């Protein structure tokens, strides 16, 4: 079967790749483009570890076909820091020790960034509901929520 040629915008840069029809965007990000920040946890849209934005919408990249990315704009965890300067959310996750093994962290960061772009001043309840599709099996959620609330406050002040 002939491969599908896709041209897309990834973290602001134009990227091209060839994919099989059944390959997911997550497969291509990790295995073809070597962007391994997005993780595969469940592969069925339950855990959120593969979170990216597609035309600004938060989605699970395991539930997007690579072929669907044609002409769209994708943002991944690799586009979050500005060179050596961490995004406020990334720094606050470190400050609050909001991770243990780290597998869920990129997904949480991408999801939290999408929330703060839509709602810069969320309540704790709003943060918890927004992040309900991101699962952490190590450390629990309080530190993660605290980090997001703290980052939101810092970003509002900045």
């Amino acid at each position, binding site marked *: 079967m002939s491969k599908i040629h896709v041209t897309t915008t990834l973290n602001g840069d134009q990227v091209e790749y060839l994919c099989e*029809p059944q390959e997911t965007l997550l497969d291509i990000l990790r295995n073809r483009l070597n962007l391994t920040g997005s993780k595969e946890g469940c592969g069925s849209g339950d855990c959120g570890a593969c979170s990216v934005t597609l035309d600004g919408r938060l989605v699970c990249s395991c539930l997007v076909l690579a072929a669907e990315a044609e002409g769209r704009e994708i943002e991944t965890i690799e586009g979050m820091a500005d060179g050596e300067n961490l995004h406020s959310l990334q720094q606050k996750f470190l400050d609050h020790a909001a991770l243990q093994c780290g597998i869920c962290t990129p997904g949480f960061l991408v999801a939290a960034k999408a929330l703060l772009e839509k709602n810069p001043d969320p309540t704790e309840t709003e943060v918890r509901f927004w992040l309900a599709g991101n699962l952490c099996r190590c450390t629990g959620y309080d530190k993660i929520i605290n980090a997001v609330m703290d980052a939101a406050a810092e970003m509002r002040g900045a």
Partner: protein
Amino acid sequence: MRYAAPDSVSEAIKLLKSEPGVSRVLAGGSDILVQLKTGMAAPDLLVDIKQIPGIYDITQENGGYRVGAAVSGAALGEHAGVKAQWPGVIEAVELIGSTQVQGRATMAGNLCNASPAADSVPAMIAAQAIAHIVGPEGERDCPVQDIPLSPGRNSLAKGEFITSILLPARPENASDAYLRFIPRTEMDIAVVSAGVSLELDSSGVCTVARIALGAVAPTVLLVDAAAECLIGTKLDENALDAMGKACSAAANPIGDKRGTIEFRKDVVAVLAKRAAKIAQTRAGDQS
């Protein structure tokens, strides 16, 4: 499997119809991609309809709203006009999955997936929503309750697909609500659910009621006997109790680890009554 992303309705129909093997339609993909991964679905051709012009649009039509087949739950929830007119449909759609799933999942997909527990379907049926279907034989409009046939099966013929769903206009003093029972607070599949749409006259008497129950039968039930208990009343306790009993009587659920038959028949009355009260309050607030 082959993948195609046609940029017109006619091309999509041609592809779907001429495929000798199994073809499936891709919109948000939150069901089909999981089915592909688990082997539950193995189509020969997947037709992505998202390049079709207008498929992402929400447009006003005769006082109602036409929602394109690729409009995600997240996009629909941001639409103030639809939210004001059909708050029950919106709250049902927004219960489908996580934020990430909301970014992709669509009402049309939820309908075609034909799960008896689909959250948006009871609300859409209560709303008298109409699916616009295109296919090799032309275009047709179909009430949404005629789309699901049994769990996982829908009534669309080969080559047909939904391009939009119309949420019709409402008179004044009309509203709707949707409630479901799940054993946790978020991110689960309905054990029992109820969508209620009401129209009241200027004195608050119910003139039109539509009550649709989810997850208590192979397909969503539209219970006319329950609706008749509310029509002509101001939803007093007697009317609501009678309506609840009619819902329990109509329910024909399975018993499984998520809920026994007795539990589902009992809870469906509670949810229908609560949803009716919410819809009544919302309808009253408009006057």
